[in-house]
């Protein structure tokens, strides 16, 4: 076989190096400096930025919220996506239409989803009005304005937008579950629950790995919806690492400190991703 020259990879490598590799390494170095927007030469400050991050209320709650958002969306969205997929991998007449509908939010720009829900969740907005109309006025809340539930509201919006994505990954996975296996289990007297628990779910492990790592990495980096819906407020109740980083860099001009926040985010993503890496490799063979 004639050798393919390395020239084939040069354009991609140049662009990737320019947009991802160089800036990422530079950012990693700046994380240890006091660099600011004014172009004075930055000096190394060791771990000072990280010490500040652990002490500053905004960054601390951002760290906590980022982990909370990532873990809860990953678990809830996986469960919901699986439930939807199981319900729609069936003989329901409306299954095709319903799949189309449940997946639709995943295609919308997150900015628009953010504003849509910002309005829905206003105190006199459609959600509270609807709750009142069906006699559930006890459940009415100031969904985004009350610091104790704002984060839960944000998580709900993220799950609403992305549950359909998890669903289609599971629907693809369900295509690979051989019907004969389920029939054999049924003949052997396995109940519906046992067939699900012992046959279907184990065969869906690759799909689960993909769905969970996608959700996890995506929600750790979460920016758009939070930034447009709450801007991190009220107080620091919905601050995430991405939002705090953006404000520190482009509002306060504290590039070094912002880079330190981004470096912490990167470490968290890699720590989680390492755990998932094997699953991703497996998926690559299938696609």
């Amino acid at each position, binding site marked *: 076989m*004639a050798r393919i020259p390395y020239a084939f990879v040069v354009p991609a490598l140049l662009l990737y190096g320019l947009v991802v590799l160089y800036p990422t390494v530079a*950012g990693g170095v*700046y994380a240890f400096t006091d660099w600011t927007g004014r172009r004075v030469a930055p000096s190394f400050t060791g771990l000072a930025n990280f010490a500040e991050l652990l002490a500053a209320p905004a960054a601390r709650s951002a760290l906590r919220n980022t982990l909370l958002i990532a873990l809860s969306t990953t678990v809830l969205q996986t469960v919901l996506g699986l439930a939807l997929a199981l319900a729609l991998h069936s003989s329901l007449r409306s299954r095709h239409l319903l799949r189309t509908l449940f997946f639709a939010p995943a*295609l919308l720009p997150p900015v628009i989803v953010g504003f849509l829900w910002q309005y829905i969740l206003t105190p006199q907005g459609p959600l509270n009005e609807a709750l009142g109309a069906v006699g559930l006025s006890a459940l009415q809340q100031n969904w985004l304005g009350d610091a104790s539930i704002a984060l839960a509201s944000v998580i709900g919006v993220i799950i609403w937008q992305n549950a359909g*994505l998890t669903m*289609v990954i599971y629907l693809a996975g369900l295509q690979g579950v051989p019907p004969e296996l389920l029939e054999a289990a049924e003949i052997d007297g396995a109940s519906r629950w046992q067939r699900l628990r012992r046959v279907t779910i184990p065969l869906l492990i690759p799909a689960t790995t993909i769905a969970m790592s996608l959700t996890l990495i995506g929600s750790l980096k979460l920016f758009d919806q939070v930034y447009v819906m709450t801007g991190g407020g009220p107080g620091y109740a919905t601050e995430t690492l991405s939002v705090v980083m953006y404000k520190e860099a482009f509002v306060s001009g504290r590039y070094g400190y912002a880079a330190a926040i981004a470096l912490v985010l990167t470490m968290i993503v890699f720590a989680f991703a390492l755990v998932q890496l094997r699953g991703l490799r497996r998926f690559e063979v299938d696609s």
Partner: protein
Amino acid sequence: MSATTGVRGARARRLTTGIAAELGMIVVALLFMFPFYVFLSVALKTPADLAASPLSLPTDPAWANVADAWQRGGLGQALTNSAIVTALSVAGLVACGSTAAYLLARRAQRLSLGLYLVFLLGLMIPLQLGMVPLYQLMRDANLLQTYTSLIIFEVGHQLPLVIFLYTGFLRALPREYEEAARVDGAGPFTSFWRIVLPLLRPITGTVVILSSINIWNDFLTPLLYVGGSAQQTLPVAIFAFRGEFASQWQIIFAGMGIAILPILVVYFLLQKYIIKGFASGIKG
């Protein structure tokens, strides 16, 4: 006799369960669709309608909202900007991604395997870490507020996903055709262009769908690079729009409706391919 009734009973029972399941799912779907109802009804309400109730249907569809949003928000320009940036970035991604993946999939050497892993790292690296250095590069090159800055960014940023998809596909693709072409005297460039690229069509479809949607919807970097300029893309324009029209939700919703209409039209036309693409790929 009793056996027949038993079968009939079971069949009737299955039918009832079927109908109940169907109705149950439709109710779930209606609840899930509630935001879309709000979207549509608010976009077509007069201010008086909206003040009366956030839930009711518009008494008389106020199409004027749509015209208003279109004119005052500069959405036509933003739509054009988004289309140009998305189309050129996707073309660049297909060109750079397919060629790179061809080498990475076909040459089993340490260097090419190492390069592949370096590209895959990009699936995880949060863009936040490189955000400021890259912004400064673009500023120093005088590229801020141009399409070029966004296209360069989008191609570089989406390449890991695209290379991942192409490489996976190429590894499963038999080499016989390329080898036959080589025997006929074709060089690597000719056989890529004539033989391999056409064979890549199915995965190119997935690449185009996934990266178009990711780029069309992208917000954070476009906000930094082209925010407030004539080059701003739709999500950035909508963001500015929201600030401008503060509490005139009916105008904001009409503007957002204009912005998502192209996505929804494409989705309903190509839903089979889009859903398949997302099921087989990774959202970047």
